[in-house]
C-alpha cells in the first residue's frame, strides 16, 4: 500500500479532473462539489485510457406523461467520464456504466487531510 499526495483541494476547480502517474498506476482524480473520486485509468471494456476522456452530463430521454418522446436532455447533476477509445460512459460518483452497472471502473481510496488530497494505491 502506498499513499500519494495529489495536491490541495483548492487546486481542483469544481467539475474538473486530473490524471496522475502514481508509480506504475495511472489514476484519474475528479472533483464534483466538495467530494473527490479516484479511478484507475483503465477502461473495463478494452483497457482504454478512460480518465483521459471528456466529461459529459448523463443523457435522459424527455418523455411526457403520455410516454411521448420530446428528444433528449442533459442531466447536469450526473456527470460521466467517457472513454476516448470507444465512448463507454461511467458515472464519476459511482464508476458504473449507466446502461449496465456490472461494467464499472476500478476505484482507489481518496483521503482529505488539512486541505491536502491523498490517493492510496495497492490497498
Amino acid at each position, binding site marked *: *500500500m*502506498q*499513499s*500519494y*499526495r*495529489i*495536491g490541495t483541494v483548492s487546486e481542483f476547480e469544481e467539475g474538473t479532473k*486530473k*490524471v*496522475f*502517474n*502514481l*508509480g506504475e498506476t*495511472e*489514476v484519474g482524480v475528479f472533483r464534483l462539489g466538495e467530494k473527490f473520486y479516484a479511478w484507475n*485509468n*483503465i477502461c473495463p471494456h*478494452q*483497457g*482504454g*485510457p478512460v480518465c*483521459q*476522456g*471528456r466529461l*459529459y452530463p448523463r443523457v435522459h430521454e424527455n418523455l411526457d406523461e403520455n410516454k411521448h418522446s420530446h428528444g433528449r436532455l442533459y442531466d447536469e447533476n450526473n456527470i460521466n467520464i*467517457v472513454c*476516448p*477509445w*470507444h*465512448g463507454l*460512459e461511467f458515472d464519476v460518483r459511482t464508476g458504473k456504466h449507466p446502461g449496465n452497472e456490472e461494467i464499472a471502473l476500478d476505484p482507489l481510496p481518496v483521503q482529505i*487531510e488539512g486541505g491536502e488530497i*491523498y*490517493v492510496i494505491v495497492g490497498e
Partner: protein
Amino acid sequence: MDALIKPAIEHPVQELDTRTDTRDYLAHARNDAEKKGFADWLIVDIDAHHVESVSWAEITSYIEDPVVRHQAEMYQSERVGAPPYGLNGDLGLRYQDVGGRIPHQSSQREVVEEKDVHRDVVLTRRAMHGLAVDYMVIFPTPMLFLGMHPQTDMEVFLSRAYNRWLTERVLPGDPGMVTLVVLPFNTPDEALKMVEEFADVPNVIGFCVTSTRYKPVHSNEYMKLYRAIEESGKPIAFHAGYHWQDPSLATCNTFLGMHSLGFAWCNIVHMTNWILNGIPERFPKLKSMWVESGLSWIPFLMQRLDDQYLMRQSEAPLLRRMPSEYMSDNCFYSCQPMEQSNMKALECTFEMINAKDQLLFSSDWPHFDFDTPSVIYDLPFLDEQSKRNILGLNAAKLFNLNTNGPK
C-alpha cells in the same frame, strides 16, 4: 502517513483530443502489447483506414480523364463549403464520434514533422506501433460509399485515381503497409481492367468491393472478373458499410441502430447471393473475405440458409453441400467489431466459422469501434496456436505474406 507518502506526477497527456499524437492515443495498447510479448507474434491487421479525403487534391490529380480532372481542380480551387469533388455519401450524417466523445474518429490533427514520406505513412506507422501490428491493410473511408454513386463513370475515375495515388505515393513509404485495390464494381469491365493493371503491383495483396451497393454479385457480367481474381491467386474482399438512405434503414432514428444493422445487412445480402448462386462451386479457388460486419451475423445466416435450402434445393442447384459449409470452408472473415457480450455465443460462433483457420484480425483503426489485438489474445476458449493463426498466420497464408514480418 507522512513517512509513506510519495508525490504524484501529473500525466503528460491530460486529455485525448483530435490533436493527440496517435502514439499517445494508443499508449495503453502499446503497454499491453509489451506485457503480452506481441513482438514475438506475427500480427496482421487486415482492415485499417486512412482518411483519403484529406489528400483529395492529390488524389484527383490522378484522374485520367482530362476534362473531369480539370473540373476537379477548378472545384477545389474555387468552390466554398462543399464536400470533396465527386464524392457521394452521407455529407453531415457522420455521427461516429458520438458528439465528440470519441475524438480520434473525428480527426487526426496531430503534428507530423517527418517530410520524407507521405503524412498517411507517418500516421499509419504510429498506429502500427501502438497496436504492435506487422502488416496493416489500408482502406479508404469516404470512398466506401462509391457503390451508391449516381454516376457509374465517377466510381471508375475516382477508384482508379485513388489506387494509382495510393500505390505510387503512399505505400512505397513502408513495406508493412499493404492494400486491397478498390474495384469500380458497378462497371464490371473496368473492374476487370483494374485487376489486370494492379494484380502485380507491389503491396497490392487483393481486391476490394465496397459492399454498399445494389448490384447483385451473382450477375453473369461478373464472371470474367471472378475468373481473373481467382487466377491472380489473391482474394476478393467485400468491405461493409452503411447506407442510411436505404429505405429500410431510413426508419432508424439513431446512428446506433442504423450502424448496427447497416454494416451487417449489406454483407448478409451479398453473401446470400454469393452462396446460393454457387460462386464457390464455379470458382473453387477464389477466396472471398467478408470485412467489418462483426461475427454474429454469420451463425444467423448459416442457420437461416441451411434451414431454407433443404426445402428449396431446386432453387440452388449448383450447391453440393449445405450453405453453411461453404461459409465455413470457403470464406474468410475479419473479426472487428467483435461482439463480446455473450462469451458462450462467441465461442459457438468461432466453432461454426472454423475460426482457427478462417478468421482474420482487424482493428478498423481509427474508427470508433476499433479493436486491439488483445480482443483475440484474451479469449478464454482459444489455444495459443489458434490465437496466433487469427492474429496473423491465417492472413499470412491467405495473402502470401512473410511470416517474419515485412522486410
